[in-house]
């Protein structure tokens, strides 16, 4: 399969009073058509920003975003508007992502209206079909968001994203605001939709166990940079970067008698305004060497499409 999305040297700095927040700093990756890239990292590492940059909800500082080989980072307004049909987003918070003054039907049908698809009557039919597709009863058409629970609200958000039949969807922590029991339902729904509609996902999450299920590849971000990226299973069986290992060690395992070697990081995340020199992780890394604070390790292939940015890993 060809790459649907290819990101090259993507950079986003947010200017603040104290300088620039290095939210995303020279990130490159590609997602093949029909696949899912999981993007994990802790809060503030730039993973959500990356997702929003990809569909140009925010403008990149520099870098290229190629969608089917076309650069959309520099696309004009008209092209961008047309791109909206191709790329959509599902938001994290099902409470603030739906307009409280619009009925469910209105919210889902709005994209169709904006792109002038069909008559009002036909659009309502399409909305009914979309609601069924995401497992919502069409009788909820005239309900308001506050009348639904979190899981159903998230289904509304998914239906809205699907309404224009996009090929690529950024899922920005779509389940992290939901109850665990609902999480599985939504994840299953996303997987089913991926198969039936040939969707490509960028799946942003801070929860490794969630990402593990849905992703083909996983990229780990730390302070605006990708530190490790590999096929999903490989990352779990052969974790190379010390930060990824710490993340994995933090996943709770429901077994009482199991003794684990804990891999606990000391210290906090350094300021993204003045990120550390060299390897950004060196301030907290248990394997720190001299070279780490001087030179930035490049993201290099260790075989089998397993990329790591670490001086120690050979």
């Amino acid at each position, binding site marked *: 399969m060809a790459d649907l999305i290819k990101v090259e040297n993507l950079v986003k700095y947010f200017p603040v009073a104290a300088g620039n927040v290095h939210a995303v700093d020279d990130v490159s990756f590609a997602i093949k058509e029909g696949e899912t890239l999981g993007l994990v990292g802790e809060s503030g590492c730039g993973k959500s920003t990356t997702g929003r940059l990809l569909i140009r909800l925010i403008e990149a500082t520099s870098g290229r975003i190629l969608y089917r080989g076309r650069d959309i980072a520099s696309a004009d307004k008209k092209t961008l508007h047309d791109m*909206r049909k191709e790329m959509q987003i599902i*938001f994290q*918070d099902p409470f603030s*992502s*739906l307009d409280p*003054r619009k009925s469910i039907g209105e919210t889902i049908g709005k994209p169709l209206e904006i792109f002038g698809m069909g008559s009002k009557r036909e659009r309502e039919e399409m909305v009914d079909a979309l609601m069924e597709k995401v497992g919502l009863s069409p009788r909820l058409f005239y309900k308001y968001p506050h009348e639904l629970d979190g899981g159903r609200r998230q289904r509304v958000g998914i239906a809205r994203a699907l*309404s224009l039949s996009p090929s690529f969807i950024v899922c920005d922590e779509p389940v992290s605001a939901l109850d665990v029991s609902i999480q599985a339902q939504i994840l299953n729904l996303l997987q089913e939709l991926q198969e039936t509609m040939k969707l490509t996902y960028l799946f942003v999450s801070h929860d490794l166990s969630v990402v593990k299920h849905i992703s083909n590849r996983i990229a780990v971000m730390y302070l605006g940079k990708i530190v490790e990226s590999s096929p999903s299973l490989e990352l779990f069986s052969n974790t190379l970067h010390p930060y990824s290992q710490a993340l994995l060690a933090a996943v709770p395992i429901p077994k009482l008698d199991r003794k684990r070697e804990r891999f606990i990081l000391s210290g906090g995340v350094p300021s993204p305004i003045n990120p550390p020199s060299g390897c950004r992780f060196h301030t907290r890394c248990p394997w720190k060497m001299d070279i780490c604070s001087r030179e930035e390790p490049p993201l290099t292939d260790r075989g089998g499409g397993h990329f790591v940015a670490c001086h120690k890993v050979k």
Partner: protein
Amino acid sequence: MNNENGTLFAPSSGRTKEREKRRSPWWEVWRRLRRNKAAVAGMSVVILLVVVAVLAPVLAPYDPNQTNIKMRLQGPSSEHPLGTDNFGRDMLSRIIYGSRISLYVGFVAVGIGAVFGGILGAIGGYYGGRLDNFIMRCMDVLLAIPQIILAIAIVGALGTSLLNLMIAVGISQLPRYARVVRASALTVRGQEYVEAARAVGASDARIILENILPNCMAPIIVQSTLGVAQAILSAAALSFLGLGIQPPTAEWGSMLSSGRQFLRNAPYLTFFPGLAISVVVLALNIFGDGLRDSLDPKLRQ
């Protein structure tokens, strides 16, 4: 299959008929408003006053401008329920006729202020940055000048007429609408549903009109109901200065101010027009309060 609880596909037959009853948003608002007794009372008073204004020629017992020097400054009596003024004109008739001008000026001036102020505020709040700064500094300039002096200047520049009076009062009220709308627009703009609207290709104009403004309705309505009262008073003050409604046209504000000089001997000359203004203001405030609540789908029972 149990569609409600997460299995994927709902039965596909007769889906449109299965929808819960279609309820138009306005019907829904009305249904909620009806439950609020105070709001219904306020609305009834407002409607009653509008009816009185429309039917003034039928309801008024006398010609409001008919002077009768022999009957001047009479207290309330069976012949003149609210007394007569210093020209012997019947106060009841003048108050009935005055409601026409006062309500008209109040509503139109507030309409002008709320529409333009609201749009300016929404634009400023939504775009932020320099445009916001520019708009809000202009509003600050308007605010810095006392409202009445500003209105005088505008009427002075445009010339004396009822329309210009309403424009002047409307413009002098612009900043308060701009400010409250901007404040709520700032919070609304950060919501994910605005981002979602952009993600599905909505233009800025569409977002401002369909997402930002509807979600700023509450403060606009509260401001407007208060604003009507102030507009009536401002118009009265301008009329008093000879810049608005010209005598002998009956108007509550000018009646109030011309009654002032007889406050000791004939207090009813100021009491009844004042009461009329207070009743309108109170009714509008209560109605506005209820309307704001019923416009919020979250408060729905």
